[in-house]
């Protein structure tokens, strides 16, 4: 089990990570979902023993990484956000080097390297220089380095950034397969669809703080139990309030420029009464759409901002 307690790190005035706590249970894929600058990389750096926290603790199977760094680091595989491979060496050279750092040698090392290459689909390009790899291939090599010593915990920092959808799926497949083999995975991303599809549980992080955590179901319930109605057009706030006045179970959860979000209690009478009123053409409402709540709406509900900007 990986336990993070009250982890904090500042860079000058910026509180990059501000007292976050969470737990990654054995065998699960745990997601850390947050926009650019949320503090994901800083968190991973502190968990992997590269960046000293200002406060807080990281326990890996009960051992503090900052107290016994080598012992803990042997249990971790880390795949950094920026591809960290030597371009003038071949893929295999890179893996030989990386495996030696963990004390692998001889036949064991060869086997581990071949397996890792096979796993990420680079076996036939292993002896080419990394300089000649495509971006997706470099990412896969980067991933294979994190797997080479069969770590108990795998920490992945946005491993699919900047590659095409197909290569992305390939990487997600590898992660799933590794997890099925019993490895515990901590996966950071700013793609909510990845978090939705891949992770057993997740935490939403923004501006260095964890806003919520739990399973996908638990989180989506936070955005409100019901459906979300998105209304767009050139209406005024007062018009909209007038339209929903007197209907039970309907609330305005947010009004923006040219749009509004309404939450509607499910299975109540609200929706049936509401739709005709909204669409009678009097208030300047052009369009109404119904959304099931998802991580995006959870994020908006928690922060008032969209995840992607």
């Amino acid at each position: 089990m990986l336990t993070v307690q009250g982890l904090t790190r500042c860079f000058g005035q910026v509180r990059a990570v501000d007292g976050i706590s969470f737990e990654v249970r054995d065998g699960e894929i745990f997601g850390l979902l947050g926009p650019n600058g949320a503090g994901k990389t800083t968190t991973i750096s502190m968990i992997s023993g590269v960046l000293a926290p200002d406060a807080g603790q990281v326990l890996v199977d009960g051992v503090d990484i900052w107290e016994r760094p080598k012992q803990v680091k042997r249990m971790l595989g880390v795949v950094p956000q920026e591809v960290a491979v030597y371009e003038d060496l071949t893929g295999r050279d890179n893996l030989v080097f990386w495996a030696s750092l963990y004390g692998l040698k001889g036949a064991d090392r060869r086997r581990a390297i071949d397996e890792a290459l096979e796993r990420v689909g680079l076996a036939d390009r292993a002896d080419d220089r990394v300089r000649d790899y495509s971006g997706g291939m470099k990412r896969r090599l980067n991933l294979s380095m994190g797997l080479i010593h069969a770590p108990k915990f795998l920490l992945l920092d946005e491993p699919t950034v900047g590659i095409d959808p197909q290569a992305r799926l390939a990487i997600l497949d590898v992660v799933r397969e590794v997890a099925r083999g019993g490895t515990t995975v901590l996966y950071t991303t700013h793609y909510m669809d990845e978090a939705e599809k891949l992770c057993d549980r997740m935490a939403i992080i923004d501006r260095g703080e964890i806003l919520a955590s739990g399973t996908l179901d638990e989180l989506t319930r936070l955005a409100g139990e019901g459906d979300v109605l998105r209304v767009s057009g050139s209406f005024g706030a007062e018009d909209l309030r007038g339209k929903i006045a007197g209907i039970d179970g309907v609330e305005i959860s947010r009004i923006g420029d040219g749009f509004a979000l309404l939450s509607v209690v499910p299975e109540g009478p609200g929706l049936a009464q509401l739709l005709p009123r909204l669409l009678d053409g009097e208030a300047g409402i052009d369009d109404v759409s119904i959304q099931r709540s998802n991580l995006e709406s959870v994020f908006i509900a928690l922060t008032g901002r969209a995840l992607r900007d």
Partner: protein
Amino acid sequence: MRAMLAIIRRDLMRWRRNPGRLALLLALPLVLAGVFALAFGSGGSGLSVRVLVLDEDDTPLSNLLAGALGSQEDTGPLDVEIVGDEGRAMIENGEASALVVIPEGFTDAFLAGRPAALRLLKNPSQRFLPQAVEEALRAGAVVLSQASRTLRDELDQFHEMLQADAKPDPLVIGAMSTRIAEKLETVADYVFPPVIELEVASAGDGESADDGPTMQAVLALMLPGLAVLSLLFFAQSATRDVMEERDRGLTRHLLTAPVSVGEYLLAKCVAVVIVSALGFGLLIALGVLAGIDWGPPVAVLALLLAAATAASGLLLLLVSLTGSEMSANALTTIVVMVSAMVGGSFVPLPVLPAFLLPVSRLTVNYWATHGFLTLIRDGGGLADVTTEIAVLSTAGLAMLALGAWRLARRIRRGDV
């Protein structure tokens, strides 16, 4: 220990996979040695390096620059000629080794602090000579950029004056020159020795008063200094990796493996010393092939290791003072070139003017070159170079330790 060996092995592997980098570092001093041998030796063949300068910018400053490049009266095998547009055709016909173009707008860009580029056209049919010209220009460019940074305000003012097209106000010029002089004084300690020294260098061929030494004697005189310069280039190239690894996130990644900061830095130090010593050793071997007797092997080896340690220490310390690969490049190039100039790599120590000696003794070049000259020219043995070995290895280890300590502190603070 295991991790350290892995890091050292990887660093050496990177050199093996990049033979071009190795060849260039080896070729550079040899080309320089060849040029000097031809310049000062009596066995001069018809070989000469012909460099053309084309001034497309045609402003007072670019005229000055072109003039400076082309002014030397008697530069031995180096033949610089200021040309017009016909220069391009000449280089294409292979009539010269290289064409330096001062492009239109160069002065404007330089004075305004925008990136200003000198263009170099190399004769494609020649390999080494154009490379030598390129290296020399690159060093010059670093100095010019430094000037542009140090004198930013003054250059702006000067620029305005040039553009205004009016008569320059003598008062403004007066005030400006005072400020420039003040600024130069603060950097004079670093900048002026090479400038002064450059002039001495062309006058330094006083030895040719007799019939002229043989090519071999000139090589024996020049090669140690140039080999030491090359040693510094090797150390520079190897330490540059430390910054590159940091800038590209490789260090951060490495430290997620079971490797401590201390182990990482110690491994880097050892790798830099090994690379420098191997490169230096190769040059010594080439010297042997060229018929130079370096002296007793034990003394040569001890001096070689001491010099490699000192060069590595100097470069690691310099790198630890900078914030990125770019600034590391600029600082190390300046220091390496300056210490080559005052330390006996370009002007042989025996003809170096006495007033430079105190400065000279602060350089790795001086101590290493002095040691090798003692072995080669004076037929000395191990006992005659113990001072050099002691100075180089003590200073080298101290600088390595200080540089590594600074880098470690930075990494621990989170600057990786």
